[in-house]
């Protein structure tokens, strides 16, 4: 009996029972854009960047189990336009001022915007007021860039066993909060060695005293686009 497979943009991708479309695609060396997905955690399905059209329906490929015989579209102008629109909404919702961000060049949001050729945020900016938290001796929190992927929430809870972070409130008022009476990171048992301190795909969780250490040209996504870098290793922080 041959291995079951589906077609991704016209080419066969083999999969094992229980694998999602995104996992099977990655195992076959095929990149599907994503922000909130991480190989160490269960699918979150919130960023929707991994949207594909499977058997005629739009689905999150990080959460949808692969099925034999499916025809899946991913890298098409129509889907990439939808992904670009999602990125544009993320950019106007926060304060993403790349020229002054320590994460510039290493940021997955920025790298995806490059790869999907997003030249304008297009929508009207919210310019929200999100004060930073510099209370911790080793780590700075700049909430301006948070995209609510919950990777830090999940890493702190599931790997570090600490539950330092959480998302609070709903809809337009949703925000990342620190699990302390004072709301300050310094008043938690968070440590710079935590997994959660190294998982932010954007520039929220920043280690102090190392900013801009890597020169332009040597940063994660300077030489190669994210679709290439992400297939080498799941892009992590630092």
């Amino acid at each position, binding site marked *: 009996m041959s291995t079951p497979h589906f077609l991704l943009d016209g080419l066969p991708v083999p999969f094992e029972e229980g694998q999602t479309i995104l996992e099977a695609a990655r195992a076959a060396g095929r990149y599907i854009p994503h922000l909130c997905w991480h190989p160490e955690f269960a699918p979150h399905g919130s960023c929707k960047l991994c949207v594909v059209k499977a058997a005629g329906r739009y689905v999150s490929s990080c959460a949808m189990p692969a099925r034999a015989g499916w025809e899946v579209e991913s890298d098409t102008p129509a889907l990439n336009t939808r992904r670009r629109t999602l990125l544009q909404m993320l950019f106007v919702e926060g*304060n*993403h001022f790349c020229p002054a961000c320590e994460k510039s*060049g290493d940021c997955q949001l*920025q790298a995806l915007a*490059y790869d999907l050729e997003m*030249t*304008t*945020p297009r929508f009207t900016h919210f310019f929200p*007021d999100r004060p930073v938290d510099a209370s911790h001796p080793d780590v700075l929190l700049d909430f301006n860039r948070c995209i609510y992927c919950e990777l830090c929430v999940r890493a702190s809870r599931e790997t570090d066993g600490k539950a330092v972070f959480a998302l609070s409130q709903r809809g337009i008022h949703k925000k990342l909060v620190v699990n302390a009476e004072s709301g300050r990171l310094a008043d938690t048992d968070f440590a710079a060695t935590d997994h959660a301190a190294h998982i932010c795909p954007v520039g929220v969780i920043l280690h102090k005293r190392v900013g801009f250490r890597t020169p332009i040209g040597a940063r994660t996504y300077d030489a190669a686009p994210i679709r290439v870098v992400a297939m080498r290793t799941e892009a992590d922080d630092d």
Partner: protein
Amino acid sequence: MTEPRKIRLATVSLAGCFGCHMSLLDIDDHLFELAGKVAFDRSPLTDIKRCGPCDIGLIEGGVCNAENVHVLRAFRANCHTLVALGACAVNGGLPAQRNHLDLGRCLTAVFQSRPGMDTGAVPDDPELPLPLDQVHPIHEVVHVDYFLPGCPPSGEAIWAFVSDLLAGRTPRVAHPLLHFD
């Protein structure tokens, strides 16, 4: 045989630092080629004060005061193709970092409370354009045809972009010329 009509190009720096104009000068030898193909209308390079009918308008900087709005609208009215050049025109950039602060308190802090500033009041000369409460990228004020991000976009990116426009092609800037920093 008559010479082909020169493309008319206007440029301006609104709430910007002129860094994008510096980057335009960074196209080096291509400046000669550019000068052969375009005639500059209003631009810091010509010192013409008002924008006339143009083929292309390059806007550096966002919109931070009433004069910026006026100039931007004049460019839109006169330029067939309007381009947001650089981070500030595209998303507000550095000047927009004041957007979460109260403008009145900013002005008071600078002109009344700062040591050594003893003017006693916020300047209100009628020749001074009124600041807006927030700095906006230009697409929030007028329709923009194309965007070239970067702080600043490199000379190489500007030349690739302008070459496409001059040749009648849809400009496309991708990796590695496309960058936001």
